[in-house]
């Protein structure tokens, strides 16, 4: 555990930082509610730039949270992105942990 982590309250330490990043959170949220989408659709819906989106997708793919299906529409390549079961679990787990973590905060 890093020094920075050890200073955090216990409920927040367990938060999945891969999901916690706002851009990746919104990417996973979009992929969670649909079956699959291509790169352009995600770019339009998330408002991220191409480079930014590409970078985050690489990290999510590396963690096994999304999978990439390369298809061909005629001769044109078409890449479809899909959330995996691991990604779904990670997002739901993140939601529950955030709820618990925020519930520990005092009222005012």
């Amino acid at each position, binding site marked *: 555990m890093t020094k920075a982590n050890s200073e955090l309250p216990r409920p927040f330490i367990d938060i999945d930082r891969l999901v916690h990043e*706002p*851009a990746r*959170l*919104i990417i996973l*949220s*979009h992929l*969670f*509610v*649909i*079956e*699959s*989408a*291509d*790169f*352009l*659709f*995600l*770019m*339009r*819906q*998330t*408002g*991220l730039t*191409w480079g930014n989106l*590409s970078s985050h*997708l*690489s990290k999510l*793919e590396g963690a096994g949270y999304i999978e*990439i299906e*390369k298809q061909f529409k005629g001769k044109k*390549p*078409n*890449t*479809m992105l899909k959330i995996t079961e691991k990604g779904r679990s990670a997002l739901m787990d993140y939601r529950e942990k955030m709820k618990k973590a925020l519930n520990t905060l005092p009222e005012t």
Partner: protein
Amino acid sequence: MKIDTDLKQIEKKSWTVYFQDGLWDIYIGMLMLAIGINTFVDSEWYSCLMIAPIFLIILGKRFITTPRLGRVRFGSERQKKRIAVFIVIALAVICGIILAGFSATGDPLPKAAVATVFGMSAILVFGSMAYFLDCGRFYIYGAMMATALILDILIDGHLVSISFLVFGAVAFIFGLALLIRFLRKYPKVSNMQYIEKD
């Protein structure tokens, strides 16, 4: 970048974005204009104007909308809703054919009955489209179409057909405005590089 963690809102927004292109509005407008023109001209050629606009949607989605918004596949819930709309439209078409059959046999139903059936069909079709496709504008188009149909059936005279032309023009112009806004908001993206697997 706005973070919207309400998953239902995200799903709805992902779905309704495809109606921002105005193609459906243009189609409905052209359909009503075609009905109105056909009433005045009463020519088989103008009847084709009612069928031609459907190709506008098919080609428009293929060459205008999808290259700008990208491709998405929705889950089974949305598929079921689409099927529900098709079923409603099919039932409405069957009702129309049955009514046309009555007219053809030389024993037409009373005008009020015909007007009621056609009016309710229009409201049912557009209402179900609005409900299942999450597009509120279709309620208004349903009301416009029902009003024009009922007036056209109950009141004799070509003057009433102007209601189709007026409503059609409104829908068409609104659709055109949506399309222009859509083209400005979502310019075509060229030379997209997709991420490669290692």
